[in-house]
Structure formats: structure tokens, C-alpha cells
């Protein structure tokens, strides 16, 4: 029976059916649900790793040891995991090893729009790209076949529209696989110069074999329509956009293997059509390949390298057709995301702003502290960069700057790659203050456990990283915890620590208000007789508070009674 399945869930189903034994990932939108769904299958060992590099190394080790293994990450996570991946390309595998990477064209939930196909090319590994949930399942299983057949890691490339769309899937039972023998073979698995030099030659030969295979592989599919004058070369979600926009007016070469790309298959396809288009999101990788082999195609000059494509864009650019639309003449204000009502981060950002501190920010829900009215972030680059970039700022601008600045980083992000920056501050005699916004969960990606929470991916109790002891162990003598719901205590703690001539680690500790175990309070109310309409309570940017007819009002459906606004009110107008 066919069922409606999220692309990410279909990848997890593919892992199950392929007999995968070990799954290790770090959460990242839009890849997170793959591992969450994988964890529901008892036959597979699944875990959240501290970061993508560790996750990839766990999976590589499991593959060396003879099991089929897997890790998933978002596109920027592959930068973190690039180090093990590039050398695992040299060692090859034993049991199959597949790494899923989810790109985010349009940046629905990311800090950049990089195209992970570049990693596959640079690392010289095979990359497959599915176009719906059924292919997510099918290609995942094929990826293991190819991984073992060609002795290579295989990357499964997803994107937001594939990972986060539901379409029909037919499932099969799991095929259990015996562990392969784990032979002592330093020439293959110990990558030092003498061995790696030999392996490099093997890898170049392997790429040639896979490229030859790609010429006739079934998942590089030609869909021909009689009488079509247009030929389209495409892959993934773009194939779906083209089919919807062009239908039988075009014929298609749908590439399931996006690295290495075939040559003759493309050449023979292109020769049949008057005009050939390459439709691909982000960079012109297929197009550049075609042109390098003398195939005349049109691509990026029409579509450009920015954002997502769609059936509308394809129809407009190729056919010059546009659908009729309607619109109001209203000025519609934007609706950017905001920290949730009761979010423990809110009070910290309000405090940082009121102390006029410069803030080196990081990746998580709390990046929203950069938006009005909190406006309290000066920079945000990548996971962990808040801590190390703050150290760089302080070394560049001196001690006075260090006393006027902080880094803010979430608990999960701190473990991911913030701790190394903190070691740098301690070791190199910095005096900066780092604030861990410890909400006891990995929030933005939808509540995943992490090494600080004390629970595994299965919510089984386990050891929890003791942040206070960890900071002390790396040489931070000033370690202090405060409750971010208490504005006065927050202000005092932050003001005192930044003033010190030594580095400090502050921990703003309160669980995410959306966690099931957090008991919220009834909504607060505004006493309209007392409210003077001064607007002070609006300065914390709480979505539950609004101003109507010069009086503040609280939305009873969303307020969770955190009480931060009550501490703002100078006339005592906010009560139970």
C-alpha cells in the first residue's frame, strides 16, 4: 500500500530496508527528521553526535568495521564533516557508507546558500539526487549498493523541497545484512603519506569507473516526448518544476547521479533537440560540465545562481508564459519570525541591549535576538564562531572592548564547536565573557537531545556534560549561573563579569518554554486602569503583547506567564 511520506522519513525507511546498522548525525534543518525517523527503528543503532565531524567519523568507523552506516547533516554541516569525508574518499569503505546532505536554496533556515555538489566534486565521491519521496527511499538503497560496489562513500543530496515534502511511497521489508569481515589492512585504512599516495591513484581510477557507469545507469533517465523541440537536462526538485511547467513540450534527461556526470549520455541527448536547457538551482555545475565537453546549452544566463527555482520561473524563462494573478493594494507589513512568548533568551537580549554591550552571536533560535526591538547582535557567522570571533575582536580592539562585549551561544552549539573557542580564550590569556544560553535542548531544529541534556536520542537517561566543571577544567575561573527570567539578577551577573580582568563563563539557565515538561503559568493580564500606555513592556519584543488605543494588551491564547514584562512595568499594571 502506498503511503504519504516526508522525504526525510523516506530516506530513513531506505536506511532500514538497506539493513543499515549505525546512524550518527547532528541536527540541522532541513535534514533533522531523517535521524529522528531512523531512531524509531529498533534494528538500527541511532545517536545524536556533538557535531557533524564526529557523526561522520562514527559512521566511517562503523563502515570500516563491516556495517552499513549513515550520517545526515545540513549543507553547512558538510563543511564541518569535510575533513573526514575527503580522506574517507581515499580509504573507501567496507560496509557501505552513505552521507545525506540537505541543501537549502532560498535559505528558509540557513546562514548561506552553498551548493554541496562542490564537495562531492572536490572529495571525488559519488553523489545521488532524488526528486521525490519514492526516490528518496529508492536512491538511499541504491547508494549502499554503489558504495559497496565501487568502494566509496556516497553522498545523497537533498534539498528543502525534497526533504520537507510528502509524496507517495511504497515500502518493503528490511534485508538484514551480516557484518563484513574487518581485515587488518593498513595500506587501505591508515592514511599516512606512503599509503595515501597509492590510494590517490585508486581514487582517480574509481572516479573513471563511476563516470563510465553513469553513462548507462538506470537512474540517469531519459524521458522523451514525440515532437518536443526542447531538451532539458536537470535533477532533483528542478525536474519536478520542469515537468509541471513544460509537460510534453520538452524531453528530459533527469540525472539521478549528479557526480560524476556522464558525457556521452548528455551529448547524445542534446544532439536530438533544437534547443537544450540546463535547469539547476544554485551554481551552474551541470551547465559548466556540458560546455566543457562542447555541448551547447542555456542555463544560468536565464536562471541565475540565487534562490529556489519553481514551475513559474521555468515557464517564464523558457516559454515566456506567466499566469494571471491578483493582489490587494494594501501595504502589508512583513512578519519575520520572533522569539516565542516566554522564551528564556528574551530577557538576556534585553539586558545586553540595556547594558549597551557588543554581542558576538551564534546559530540557533537566539539569532533572532538580532531583530527589532531587541537589536542586540553584532555578528553571526557559523556554529561556534561567537566565542572565537569575540576573542579575535578583543585581541584587535583591546581590553576596553573586551569589557564591553560578550559572546552568546546555545548549549548544543557550545558543545558542537564553542568549547574549542573557550579554550582559546583561556589559553591565550583573553578576558572575554561568554554567555551560554542553556535552554536544555537543541531548540531551532525542533527539540533534539544533546550531550548537555542528560538524555539520548531515545530519551533514555545518560550522563550530562557539566558545563560549570567543563569551563573550570579548561581554565575559566569565573563561572556563574543566572536565571534569565530574573532581569535584575541577569543584569547584575552580566555587568559584573564583563568588568573583570579575567575571562568568564556565564550560564543563562532555563529550559525552552516549548518543552513538554515545562509547566507554564496562566496568561498575565493588563490592568487597564493602571496602564499609562508608556510602551516599556513593548521593548522586549514579546509577540503576546500589543498596544491598542494607547493601552497595552496581552493575548491570552499565547502568553505563558513568564513575568518578564511584569518586571518592565513601572506602574504595576501587569498582574495575574
Amino acid at each position, binding site marked *: 500500500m502506498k503511503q504519504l511520506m516526508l522525504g526525510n522519513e523516506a530516506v530513513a525507511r531506505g536506511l532500514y530496508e538497506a539493513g543499515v546498522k549505525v546512524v550518527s548525525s547532528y541536527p540541522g534543518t532541513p535534514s533533522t527528521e531523517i535521524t529522528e525517523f531512523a531512531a524509531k527503528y529498533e534494528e538500527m543503532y541511532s545517536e545524536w553526535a556533538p557535531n557533524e565531524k564526529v557523526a561522520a567519523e562514527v559512521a566511517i568507523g562503523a563502515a570500516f568495521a563491516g556495517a552499513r552506516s549513515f550520517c545526515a547533516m545540513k549543507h553547512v554541516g558538510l563543511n564541518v564533516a569535510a575533513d573526514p569525508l575527503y580522506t574517507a574518499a581515499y580509504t573507501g569503505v567496507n560496509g557501505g557508507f552513505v552521507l545525506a546532505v540537505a541543501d537549502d536554496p532560498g535559505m528558509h533556515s540557513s546562514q548561506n546558500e552553498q551548493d554541496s555538489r562542490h564537495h562531492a566534486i572536490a572529495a571525488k565521491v559519488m553523489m545521488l539526487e532524488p526528486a521525490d519521496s519514492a526516490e528518496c527511499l529508492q536512491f538511499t538503497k541504491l547508494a549502499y549498493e554503489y558504495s559497496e560496489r565501487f568502494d566509496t562513500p556516497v553522498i545523497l543530496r537533498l534539498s528543502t523541497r525534497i526533504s520537507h515534502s510528502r509524496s507517495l511511497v511504497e515500502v518493503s521489508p528490511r534485508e538484514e545484512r551480516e557484518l563484513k569481515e574487518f581485515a587488518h589492512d593498513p595500506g587501505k585504512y591508515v592514511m599516512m603519506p606512503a599509503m595515501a599516495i597509492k590510494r590517490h591513484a585508486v581514487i582517480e581510477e574509481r572516479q573513471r569507473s563511476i563516470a563510465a557507469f553513469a553513462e548507462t545507469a538506470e537512474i540517469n533517465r531519459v524521458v522523451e516526448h514525440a515532437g518536443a523541440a526542447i531538451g532539458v537536462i536537470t535533477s532533483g526538485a528542478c525536474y519536478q518544476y520542469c515537468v509541471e511547467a513544460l509537460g510534453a513540450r520538452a524531453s528530459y534527461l533527469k540525472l539521478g547521479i549528479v557526480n560524476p556526470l556522464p558525457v556521452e549520455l548528455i551529448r547524445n541527448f542534446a544532439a536530438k533537440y533544437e534547443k537544450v536547457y540546463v535547469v539547476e538551482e544554485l551554481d551552474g555545475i551541470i551547465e559548466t560540465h556540458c560546455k566543457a565537453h562542447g555541448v551547447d546549452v542555456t542555463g544560468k544566463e536565464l536562471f541565475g545562481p540565487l534562490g529556489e527555482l519553481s514551475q513559474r520561473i521555468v515557464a517564464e524563462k523558457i516559454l515566456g508564459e506567466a499566469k494571471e494573478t491578483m493582489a490587494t493594494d494594501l501595504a502589508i507589513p512583513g*512578519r519575520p519570525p520572533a522569539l516565542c512568548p516566554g522564551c528564556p533568551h528574551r530577557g538576556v537580549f534585553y539586558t545586553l541591549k540595556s547594558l549597551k554591550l557588543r554581542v558576538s552571536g551564534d546559530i540557533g533560535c537566539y539569532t533572532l535576538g538580532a531583530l527589532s526591538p531587541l537589536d542586540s547582535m553584532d555578528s553571526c557567522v557559523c556554529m561556534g564562531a561567537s566565542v572565537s570571533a569575540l576573542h579575535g575582536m578583543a585581541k584587535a580592539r583591546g581590553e576596553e572592548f573586551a569589557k564591553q562585549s560578550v559572546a552568546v551561544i546555545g548549549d548544543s552549539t557550545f558543545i558542537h564547536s564553542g568549547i574549542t573557542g573557550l579554550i582559546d580564550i583561556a589559553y591565550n590569556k583573553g578576558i572575554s565573557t561568554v554567555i551560554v544560553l542553556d535552554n536544555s535542548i537543541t531548540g531551532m531544529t525542533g527539540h533534539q537531545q544533546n550531550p548537555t541534556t542528560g538524555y539520548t536520542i531515545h530519551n533514555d537517561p545518560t550522563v550530562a556534560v557539566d558545563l560549570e566543571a567543563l569551563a573550570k577544567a579548561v581554565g575559566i575561573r569565573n563561572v556563574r549561573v543566572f536565571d534569565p527570567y530574573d532581569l535584575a539578577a541577569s543584569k547584575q551577573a552580566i555587568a559584573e563579569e564583563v568588568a573583570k580582568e579575567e575571562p568568564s563563563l556565564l550560564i543563562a539557565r532555563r529550559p525552552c518554554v516549548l518543552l513538554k515538561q515545562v509547566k507554564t503559568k496562566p496568561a498575565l493580564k493588563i490592568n487597564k486602569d493602571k496602564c499609562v500606555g508608556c510602551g516599556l513592556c513593548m521593548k522586549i519584543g514579546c509577540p503576546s503583547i500589543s498596544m491598542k488605543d494607547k493601552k497595552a494588551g496581552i493575548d491570552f491564547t499565547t502568553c505563558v506567564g513568564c513575568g518578564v514584562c511584569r518586571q518592565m512595568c513601572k506602574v504595576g499594571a501587569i498582574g495575574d
Partner: protein
Amino acid sequence: MKQSMNVMIVGVGGQGTLLASRLLGAVFLKEGFDVKVSEVHGMSQRGGSVVTYVKAGEKVASPIIERGEADIILAFEQLEAARWLPYLKKGGRVIANTQKTDPMPVVIGAAQYPEGVLEATTAAGAELTAVDALSLAVEAGSPKAVNVVLMGVMARFLGVEYDVVKQAVADTVPEKFREMNLKALQLGFEAR
């Protein structure tokens, strides 16, 4: 049902639009159509403008709905109906919850919440069904049932039997909330 149906569900992060899109996907699947449901998770869920797409037909290719393609826009909040109106097909229908939620630029006084939002959608050419879904949800037993009330309103315009929608709700929601949700669905279906 018609040969194909494109429904956009728009609202504010946290209002339960994802559940509504899954319910609708299940309804179309039961009717024997090919179905695609597209969601966006992550950053925009935090109180931002959110949109999900539900498409049904003999064969659905693209998972997303583009400008001028939606048969129905189901708006959990008025302003979102107007924001996404360019995605409505000519002659298409807006089903709107009359609830207003100020976006942050309005909250901080940097912008105004426009007047006459729903009137403007009809002036632009949309068919409109407007319902105070929050009041009906409270009547059914929980303000959180706004999504199911709106599913009930939409059930009139899907071209599928009400019982199919009812069954999908019964299959999807947890046992202890079933009765309340079915009441919410009924109140939405009967709302005029």
C-alpha cells in the same frame, strides 16, 4: 472533486498549519489522488509567516504552488490571506479566520496593521468565506482547535464527502482530544 486541487494553508508559526496540511493530504489520498504536501520547518516556525502547500491530482509533479495556481487559500490569520493572495487562481476562494495577530513590525510601532484586509481580497477578485474560528474553537473546548475548525469550513469547498474529512480528523488526533476536535470540525462545517 475536480481533476486537481491546489490548497495553500497560510498562517503564523505555531498556529497548527502543519497539522491541517497533513489532514488535508490524508483526505485527498483517501479519495485516490496522487498527493504532495510541502512544508517549511525551522526558523520561520517561530512566529513568522508560514505557508504549506497541498496538491492533489492524477499526477502531481512540483511540490510547491506558485503565483496564480491555488484553488483555495486557507488563511489562519487575515493579513496572511492578503499577503499570499497573488498565489490564488483567478476565481479562487479565500477561506479566512477573522482573527488578527500583529506582526512584530506592528507591535513595535514601525508599521500599521492595514484596515479592511478581507474586503480588499474580494475587491481584488477573490471569493471569500470569513469565519471567527477562534470563538468556535473555544466553543468546542480549546482555542488550539482553530486548525480543525478551519478544516471544517474548508470541507464545504473540497468536493469530497464530509464523512471523509471527519474520518481523517478522527484518525489523526489523539484519542483524548477526539470528541473536542470532531465538535470543532462540525462547528466549522456549519459556520455561515
